[in-house]
């Protein structure tokens, strides 16, 4: 870089220097990512990514292919205006993805860049550029490209116009996402705002599921006529027609109009529509830049920075009493450690609205779905399915036990406590949460579909206990070997290691398949009496595995404490 600042007296910042900055930042992100794999436990992370990324790519493949095909189909059928429907769908899909997946794992805080001689416009460009890697942005770009390709194959003469119009549409979406994320981060930088936002998301997702269960024909075979009635269809069409005069001024419709104009050879109209679309992009960019300008000036998004200093006058200091001196003579009981940690865990759960809502969601979902399932012929699977679904929300909590405590986790290694007691306390909390959750879910099912068979209930509970114990054993180990510090002040940071999430799901699916297999086999062979002893043996085996795991976890935690602290103490 020395040659770039060969003439510092002129104090002129060159384009090469800016390019060098971009390269340096890209290199930094790459090295942070790469070096993360070199850590102890990094191989597991790499394996997790190798497993998860192809799944994400596969999930992106089908909507992309579908959009391309639909673009081709509408063009060949002379209905190119209907491409706007695809664009609305893509827009909504990407917003849902944004809510559920967020951004890729944050490798460093981009605001740290402001200590370098970076211009505001470069800072904005850097923040925009790295935001392109968000799953939703990648998907919208792929879908836009696929539609353009589909149109081009159908009508090669429209190739350039389709590419221009859909590039403008993709740009609008990317800028919209970046703008929303930047402002949401600002709004969610206080704890209270996060709690309100979580509540809104929770209410929204429940409302969405309610609508889905009640209006989606897939869930309403038995009363399909009730789900989509002519009155409702008519109301929906009327609503669309009322909204249409306003919708035509929004980017998906503008892009559709641009394509129609291009097809009809009305180049002025095409240009006007693309310019109007780009105007939206410019507005989103301006609002995004407004936020970036504040961050560029050194704003820190955190609870500390936003804490309102409503200080009361200090009370007069009292002298430190002799009781806090060298030797207290107080009783030193180790067995109380489990109770003390458990008490602290309860405080954390009480203050974690995210966990709170994630525990309510399964109950509500079971309430919504159980009524539908119980009417069908396969209602015998209702209880096992509901309990397994419930465990999906409880099990992952044990796979990152120290994530919320962050650097505070060091305390457990400083204090005179056995680490197995700490894990035991955390596991007891997980078991209690699961127990309460399962009891509530069962109560909902009994309310909706009557009392289940005692055998099925017993077998399901034995299976749930076995699954929890095995999950906790693995979760304890993963909490130590692959912890993730959970950031509260960011809207959508990484909440857990991808491999841990994968293992958590895998364990549940494997054990569900095993349990389901046993149930089917017992029914097929008409040997229902075998089920109870078989699942009791499964529980006994799981219990032995858990006890052995708990004994082993102390040594394991001491052996991995360095990477634990390194990850949890990250700023």
């Amino acid at each position, binding site marked *: 870089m020395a040659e770039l600042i060969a003439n510092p007296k002129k104090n002129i910042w060159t384009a090469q220097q800016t390019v060098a900055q971009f390269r340096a930042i890209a290199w930094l992100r790459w090295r942070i990512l790469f070096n993360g794999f070199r850590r102890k436990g990094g191989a597991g992370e790499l394996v997790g990514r190798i497993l998860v990324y192809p799944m994400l790519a596969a999930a992106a493949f089908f909507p992309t292919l579908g959009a391309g095909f639909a673009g081709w189909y509408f063009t060949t059928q002379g209905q190119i205006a209907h491409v706007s429907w695809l664009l609305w769908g893509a827009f909504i899909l990407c917003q849902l993805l944004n809510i559920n997946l967020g951004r890729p794992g944050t490798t460093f805080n981009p605001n740290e860049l402001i200590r370098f001689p970076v211009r505001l416009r470069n800072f904005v460009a850097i923040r925009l550029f790295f935001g392109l890697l968000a799953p939703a942005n990648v998907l919208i770009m792929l879908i836009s490209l696929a539609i353009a390709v589909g149109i081009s194959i159908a009508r090669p003469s429209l190739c350039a116009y389709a590419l221009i119009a859909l590039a403008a549409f993709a740009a609008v979406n990317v800028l919209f996402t970046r703008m929303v994320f930047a402002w949401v981060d600002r709004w969610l930088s206080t704890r209270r705002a996060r709690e309100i936002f979580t509540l809104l998301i929770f209410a929204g997702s429940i409302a969405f599921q309610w609508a889905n269960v009640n209006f989606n024909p897939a869930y309403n075979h038995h009363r399909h006529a009730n789900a989509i009635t002519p009155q409702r269809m008519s109301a929906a069409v009327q609503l669309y027609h009322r909204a249409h005069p306003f919708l035509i001024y929004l980017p998906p419709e503008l892009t559709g109009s641009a394509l129609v104009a291009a097809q009809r050879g009305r180049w002025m109209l095409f240009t006007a529509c693309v310019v109007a679309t780009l105007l939206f992009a410019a507005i989103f960019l301006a609002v995004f830049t407004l936020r970036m300008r504040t961050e560029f000036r050194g704003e820190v998004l955190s609870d500390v920075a936003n804490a309102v200093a409503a200080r009361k006058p200090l009370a007069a200091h009292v002298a*430190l009493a002799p*009781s*806090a001196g060298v030797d207290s003579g107080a009783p030193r009981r180790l067995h109380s450690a489990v109770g003390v940690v458990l*008490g602290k865990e309860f405080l954390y759960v009480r*203050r974690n609205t995210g966990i709170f809502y994630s525990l309510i969601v399964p109950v509500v979902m079971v309430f919504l779905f159980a009524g539908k399932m119980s009417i069908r012929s396969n209602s015998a699977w209702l209880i096992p399915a509901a309990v397994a679904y419930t465990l999906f929300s409880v099990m992952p909590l044990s796979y990152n036990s120290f994530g919320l405590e962050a650097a505070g986790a*060091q305390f457990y290694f400083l204090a005179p406590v056995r680490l197995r007691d700490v894990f035991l306390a955390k596991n007891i909390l997980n078991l209690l949460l699961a127990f309460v959750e399962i009891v509530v879910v069962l109560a909902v099912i009994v309310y909706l579909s009557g009392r289940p068979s005692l055998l099925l209930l017993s077998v399901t509970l034995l299976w749930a206990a076995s699954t929890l114990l095995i999950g906790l054993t693995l979760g304890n180990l993963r909490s130590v070997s692959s912890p993730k510090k959970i950031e509260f002040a960011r809207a959508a940071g990484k909440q857990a290691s991808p491999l841990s999430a994968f293992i958590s799901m895998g364990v549940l699916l494997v054990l569900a398949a095993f349990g389901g297999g046993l149930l089917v086999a017992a029914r097929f062979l008409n040997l229902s009496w075998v089920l109870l002893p078989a699942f009791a043996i499964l529980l006994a085996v799981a219990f032995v595995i858990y006890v052995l795991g708990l004994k082993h976890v102390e040594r394991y935690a001491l052996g991995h*404490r360095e990477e634990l602290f390194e990850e949890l103490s990250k700023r």
Partner: protein
Amino acid sequence: MTPAIALHDLSRYFNGFAAVDHIDLTVEAGQFFGFLGPNGAGKSTTIKMLTGLLAPSTGSIQILGQDLLANPLEVKRNLGVVPEGMALFGRLTASEYLRFVGRMYGLDKQTTAQRSDELLEFMGLANERKKLIADFSHGMGKKLALAAAVIHGPKVLFLDEPFEGVDALAAGLLKSMLQRMIARGATIFLTSHVLEIVERLCSHIAIIHHGRIVANGSLDELRAGVQARLAPADGEAAQAANERLTLEQIFLSIVGGEQGAERPEGELAWLS
């Protein structure tokens, strides 16, 4: 008398690099011990090994006559630690945190509650007792970490940069509290880059450099050692040595050989 801390042949390697290189060190009970060294010398690695946050590669650690590696729980009951990262729980309030720590060290509920209140008053955090620690400033967090480190009345206290970010008023109070602990027989092991604080508080000092202990003794002993080294070589330095050397001068004389040497005139000339 059993030493408060006794290290023998202690070392720690990171990928073959010796961060701490076979050190021996003894800290007597009742000493206010300063542990100094330049950045990267091995101070934090040593203190992490002494408090159970890091496993040593070789050697033994005896604290109050007990082996830390063999009996970690018994040893830790008598230790108080303010670690580098403070190890606070952001989602607890100050009061809840102190009660949690007190109970973890085996104090009963009543004693814990009473000491929590006293310590919060003493640290000037009484009005912030219901605020979440995540909302604390760095200095407030440091004061709370210190309160948590002493709530169980430890016999040995490890402090890693305890005054960093603490205002002058609170720092004065904390110093007087620490000196009172020493007067009652506790041992304090302090690391700090603020040499004036170490000079004022510590009776004994060890300096670690490149992972090895290069000086160890009382301040007067270190002063005498440096004076003896300077006297025969350099008349001017010897004259200066007759004056009372500060800890900073002693420290630079011992570890600042390379940095303190004469530098070429034109070096870094581009700096304005």
